[in-house]
């Protein structure tokens, strides 16, 4: 890798600065990226679908979509990418980085908001800024999809109950003429404020399984 050593390192440092990972973690993630894409430059959906463990996950489709969602890349535009590079890969994963110790309260709130935004984007598939009843129902159906029973009916019931609850909590009184269209991001934040997302939505990045990495083909 001789002379091109400085290139990636420089890129790594940029990424480390931007996303908050350490250089070591970025290197590990890079190795993993190469493994996933089988030494190609960009990651496509098929690569992610090849991860065997993911096949058993009920919400794998949404997880995979999240990697290709432009909104998660910090861009203002909406839509999906077809393939992503290493930078986008790390950007998406940075949503799951545990907050550094001794983080100020203000920054914790920001981190929480970002993580909740990521979750919200995962639910809001049509990019309109609102989680409607259908979208929510799809979420519940996918969660229950690994069980063979009951299917649509109970999912409907649960979704309705959940939406009702959100509406009751956030909007309160509603006349019979008003219509509640869906969950906005503020309401989403409100109902999940007790879940402590900033501490729960994290994984440790120092234990990557790099034994499967093959350098060069």
């Amino acid at each position: 890798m001789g002379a091109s050593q400085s290139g990636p390192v420089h890129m790594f440092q940029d990424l480390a600065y931007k996303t908050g990972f350490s250089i070591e973690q970025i290197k590990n993630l890079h190795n993993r990226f190469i493994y996933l894409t089988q030494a190609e430059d960009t990651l496509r959906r098929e690569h992610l679908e090849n991860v065997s463990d993911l096949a058993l996950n009920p919400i794998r489709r949404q997880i995979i979509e999240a990697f290709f969602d432009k909104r998660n890349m910090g861009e203002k535009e909406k839509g999906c990418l077809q393939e992503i590079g290493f930078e986008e890969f790390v950007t998406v994963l940075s949503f799951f980085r545990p907050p550094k110790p001794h983080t100020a309260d203000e920054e914790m709130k920001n981190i929480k908001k970002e993580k909740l935004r990521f979750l919200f984007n995962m639910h809001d598939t049509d990019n309109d800024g609102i989680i409607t009843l259908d979208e929510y129902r799809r979420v519940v159906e996918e969660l229950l999809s690994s069980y063979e029973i009951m299917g649509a009916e109970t999912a409907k019931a649960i979704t309705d109950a959940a939406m009702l609850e959100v509406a009751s909590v956030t909007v309160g009184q509603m006349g019979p003429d008003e219509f509640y269209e869906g969950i906005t991001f503020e309401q989403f934040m409100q109902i999940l404020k007790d879940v402590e997302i900033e501490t729960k939505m994290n994984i440790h990045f120092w234990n990557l399984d790099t034994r499967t990495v093959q350098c060069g083909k």
Partner: protein
Amino acid sequence: MIQELTSRLKLNFPAQIIPRYSCFRRGSMFILVLGLLVGSLMPLGGASGSPGSGTGQDECKKNNGDEKNGNKTTKKSFPVLSLNYENVRLPFEISLWVLLASLMKLGFHLMPRLSSIVPESCLLIVVGLLVGGLIKLVGKAPPVLESNIFFFYLLPPIILDAGYFLPIRQFTENLGTILMFAVVGTLWNAFFVGGLLYGVCQLEGTNLAGVNLLSCLLFGSVISAVDPVAVLAVFEEIHINELLHILVFGESLLNDAVTVVLYHLFEEFTNAGTITVTDGFLGIVCFLVVSLGGIVVGAIYGILAAFTSRFTSHTRVIEPLFIFVYSYMAYLSAEVFHLSGIMALIACGAVMRPYVEANISHKSHTTIKYFLKMWSSVSDTLIFIFLGVSTVAGPHEWNWIFVVATLVFCLVARVLGVIGLTFVINKFRIVKLTSKDQFIIAYGGLRGAIAFSLVYLLNPKHFPMRNMFLTAIITVIFFTVFVQGMTIRPLVDLLAVKKKQETKRSINEEIHTQFLDHLLTGIEDICGHYGHHHWKDKLNRFNKKYVKKCLIAGERSKEPQLIAFYHKMEMKQAIELVESGGGSKLPSAMPSTVSMQNIQPKKPPQDRALPQLSKAREEEIRKILRTNLQRTRQRLRSYNRHTLIADPFEDGLDEILIKRKKMKELEKKMNNYLTVPAPPADSPSVARARLASDPQAWGLKSVTEIPTIKVELVSPQNPESVKVVDEFSKKGSQPKGSEEEGGLTMRVPSSEKQRKDKTPDEEPQPRFMRCLSDPGPAAEDEDEDEPFLP
């Protein structure tokens, strides 16, 4: 004895009959009971087993007049009334003690000011001291807390209660931290205290030279263990946040293994005389065996209990019995092999709970919960009272230096241990432990009756300074319980430590917790990182695939957690509503009028069939429905959107599922056309009417009908009488209101307008299906508290 009793009563009576003040009355009741107790305990004293030899003869004389040994000579008149106390003495005394304990507990809560300052455990110890003092005053030796009674009868209920209701999620999330505190912390405490005490004993001028190193280490190991009973008693009252609670409590449970091993280790060494390295190594092996063995024993019994509960559907009454007996057997079996009985109990309770709860009826669940709470409460009270009594009774040997040194070293060791361990632990935790947390953890390290009983078990021959140990331990216990127990509450308030949040678990949170689990597992898989979530997911899958099928009866084995949660919520809601008088007041805090009619998809479904209703008619219908709905005083709350079976206590989930399927088939058979009110006569009976909830589905079917729903009243007495005429499905926004209520009669609007003015009583035809919460539109005209129309 009778005379003494009565004299005691006479003594007590004049002191407090001042009828004006109720607390005096209460006080008198207690003193009366105290007197009774003391009086009856006097013959018992501290001596063991005085065989009531007088019993037999009285009996004989009563029953067999022709006994050989008996009365040949004289013919006594038939004894109408005779006294035979010896026969019932033991059960009588036990009952009296239990009664005393419960009355004390009752009394403390009647005096709210006192119970908010002083924790219950302190008060109980004081009562014990008083009782012990009274007994001693009379001249008898008060009973001491026998270690057997403590370990076999008083301790298991408390531990089972704790283990069965252990919050598994928080426990496993913090398991590493808890284990560190329990194992490393206790070891550190034991050696620190033991070693330093030995050093003190070696000092000149303390005349403690007789205490050898091993005895000191043994003493250290016993006194360093945080006591679950004391911790529970104090922490229950201060409502501290869940993290700290589970840390201190988990530590107190898990350090039992360490204590057991160290105790036996040092006891053996004292007998043996010499220690080698092999012994040290064996000690470590022994620790692993004790703790893991205890857990395995507990898990085996837990699985057995779960398996048994699968078949109890026909004998619901004895379900709780299985739970209790299996758990107790787990404890005793572990004790047979000198394994950690506490860990066995915890493992048994935690393992069997998810499966048992899916199998047993709701009533059994309530029974188990209340029995466990009751037993543990009584045990807890008795333990503290006996501690007080034993203090008065026990042989004491007061040695200022030793006792003070013990106390100081215990406190210092605890603080140092916590700080040191937290420093290491915080490197691995996401949620770091702040110094406030550390302070509470250190301060919450209370010692209790387990330490006392363990020292009591020591053989005086091998441990000549046992009495001194007893005194020291009692002092430490008193100090921790009184000083630390009393001051922890104001300290918690002062330091503004986070308290427990009393929020109800909402379904949104549940959905997202599950979602997060899967999401994090997925991300871990993508990163190739086999972490915490990955293994948890694997365990869950294994559980779902194999274990649940074996241990859970019937259909419930396939029920996903989310659905189980949802059903539980519905049940709870229904029960709450019934208990609150059936609809006069909402139990929930949010009087919102949001209902399903308000929740509309942003874009109406594209493929609507042509509306066969004219616009005007649609408007009319909508208005009628809206006004009808507005008249009902209550909107169905979140989990009540579907009308519920009147009897939520019935556990025929299978029937529910079958009937639901029937409903679906019924729905499919519907004709989609607008009709004049359909004949209400023939209707299949369905227990649970599930009305179409889905605006989406309506769009796909081109249905424009307003069928009639004729539903019989649901009353708690006959849930089977619920009938549903027609399932309806209507596209668009119209049935949104009706689907929510589910009980309205939908007729063609013209007739509807007239009907709504009449009270339902005049119309036998449209009878309303009642949700438990829903009084129906006409309820306002009638009595408020009558949700169920006759």
